[in-house]
C-alpha cells in the first residue's frame, strides 16, 4: 500500500480521544467515521482527505476496548498505523476485524518520517519506502498467526 502520513508525535493516544464515549451507541461505520479523532484533532477530517497512514508513538489505542476506534479510523480512510507500540486490544481489533494494518516501527523510523511524507509499505518484504525523502526503513514483521489472519482478511476468514 501507498499513501501520505498524518503524524501524531505523542504516546498513549487512547480510544476515548480516537472515538469519544457518547458515540459508542453508534454502529454504522460511516457514522463513526464522522467522529474519528474528535477528542484530539479537529483537523483530522481535512488531513485524512490526502492521507491514509498515521505515524505515532507508544501504546497507541490504549484504554477502552471499543472496536469503534479502529472502525472509525478505517472508515475515514486510514489503512495503516505505524506506531512504536500498540495497546493490545486495539491491535487485536485492527487485525481480527481486518480494519487496518497495525505496524510496529523503531525509534529511528519514527523520527525519520514527517507529516505529509509519502510512504510505500510492503508487508511481504517488511520494507517501508519513504518516497518523499528517498529513504527505506524496516518494519517489525507480523507474528506468524497475525500475518495469516491479515492475509485471510480477518479472523472469521482465517481457517486454523
Amino acid at each position, binding site marked *: 500500500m501507498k499513501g501520505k502520513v498524518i503524524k501524531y508525535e505523542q504516546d498513549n493516544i487512547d480510544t476515548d480521544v480516537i472515538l469519544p464515549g457518547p458515540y459508542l451507541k453508534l454502529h454504522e461505520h460511516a457514522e463513526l467515521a464522522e467522529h474519528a479523532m474528535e477528542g484530539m484533532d479537529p483537523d483530522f477530517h481535512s488531513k485524512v482527505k490526502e492521507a491514509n497512514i498515521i505515524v505515532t508513538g507508544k501504546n497507541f489505542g490504549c484504554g477502552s476496548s471499543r*472496536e469503534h476506534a479502529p472502525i472509525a479510523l478505517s472508515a475515514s480512510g486510514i489503512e495503516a498505523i505505524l506506531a512504536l507500540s500498540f495497546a493490545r486490544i486495539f491491535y*487485536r481489533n485492527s487485525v481480527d476485524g481486518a480494519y487496518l494494518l497495525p505496524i510496529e516501527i523503531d525509534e529511528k523510523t519514527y523520527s525519520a518520517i514527517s507529516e505529509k511524507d509519502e510512504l510505500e509499505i510492503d508487508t511481504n518484504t517488511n520494507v517501508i519506502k519513504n518516497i518523499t525523502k528517498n529513504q527505506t526503513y524496516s518494519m517489525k514483521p507480523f507474528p506468524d498467526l497475525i500475518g495469516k489472519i491479515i492475509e485471510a482478511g480477518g479472523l472469521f476468514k482465517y481457517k486454523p
Partner: protein
Amino acid sequence: MNITEKILARASGKDMLEPGDVIFANVDKIMLHDVSGPGVIKTFEKLEKDGVVKVDKLFDPSMVWVAEDHFVPSVDKISAENIVQLSKFTKKFGITKHFKYGLGQYGICHTLSHEEGLVSPGELYIGGDSHTNTTGALGAFACGLGHTDVAYVLLNGNLWFKVPETLYFKINGKLPEHVMAKDLILKIIGDITTEGGAGHAMQFGGNGISDMSVESRLTLTNMTTEAGAKNGIIEPDQKVFDYLSERGVTEYDAVYDDDDAQYKKTYEYDVTELEPLVAKPFSPQNVSVVQETTGIELDKSYIGSCTGAKYEDLEAVAKILKGKKVKIRTEILPAAISIYKKATENGLTQIFIDAGAVVGPPTCGACCGAHMGVLAKDEVCVSTTNRNFPGRMGHVESKTYLTSPLVAAASAVTGKLTDPRDL
C-alpha cells in the same frame, strides 16, 4: 507454571505452556453489553451478508451472559433501539442470562460478574469490555476484547491467545485506615506507567492480599487495564470460596501457581505507610499523594463505576458523609441493584440523601462520558472511576481527578480535593 499459564494450558489442552506461545483456547464464559452486543449483532449481519459464516446458532448460549450498563436508562432513540436489538438477539439465540434495566438485578457488567457469581476460579472468561480484567480477582483468567473477537467466541467457543509474561506484585502488610485498594493500584500504575503492564498478566499476592476483602481485590484487578495488562489475577483463597458460596456457587476447579512458577518480574510493596493518592488529569499514571494536591477547587464528586461503587466503596463513602453536608454536586451510583438494595437496607442511601447527594441507578453513565452527569468545559471532578483521559467524562476541557471513594467523599464535603485524614 503460574496460575495464568495453567488456566490457558488447561483451556488449550496442553500440558505445558510458556509466555509467547500462541494458542487456540476454549473459553468458559462470555460477556457482552449494550455497546459490544450491538457491535456483535452488526458483525454477524455483515459476515452473513458477505457469505463468510451462517449464524443460526451459538456455540453454547449457556456460556453467555449479557449486561445493560453503558446507555441505561436509555439516553435517546438510538440507545433505546440498541437495547431493543439486544433483547431480540438474546431471545433469538436462547441466552437466558440477560440482566435487564428495570427488571430485577442488573448493573455494570464487571460488577455483575462477581455479584452474581457468574465466573468461577480456574475459568477462562472473556468479555466485550476492557475492564473484564476485574473478574481475575476470583482466580479466573479474565480478559477484555473487541466485538469481532467476542463474536468469534460466540460462534466457535474458542479464540487465539498469546500466553502473557507475568508481572508479580507481592503486597505486604495491612492498608492503613483511610487508605483503600484504589490507592494501592494508583500507586502501582504511577510506578509502572500506563504501558508498564502492556500485554502482560498482572498477578497480585502476599499477605497484603490475603488480608484484603474480595471487593478490594477486585479494585486492583479492575485497573490492571489502565496499566495495559492482558489480565489481572489473584490466586483464589477461602475468602473467594466463601464469597462465591454466598452466591450459590460451590463447584469449580480452582487453579494455583506451581511451586516453581515463574514471573518475568516481581515487585514488592509494603502498604503499611501508603497514603491516599490521586491520579491527576489526564492520565491514570499521573499520580501524586493527595496531601500535595489538597485545595484544588472541585465542581463535582462522582462515586460510581465498576471500580468505585461496590458495596464496601459505598460503606466508605457513608462513613465520611454520615451527619455531614456535601458542598459540591455529588452523584452516587451503586454499581448493581443488589448493592443498591443492600445500601438501602443498611441505611447508606439515607445517609447519602441526608448529606445532599443524589443517588442514581446503576450505569456506566458519566464514567465513559455517555450520560447521567457528564462534565462541562472547565468543570473539575473528583471521581472513583478508572480513567481521566481528555474528554473521558464529558468535555475535552473538563478535568477528572481519580481517587478512592474515601477521598471522593471527603472532597465532596469540603468542595476541594481533600485527604480524608484532614476532615
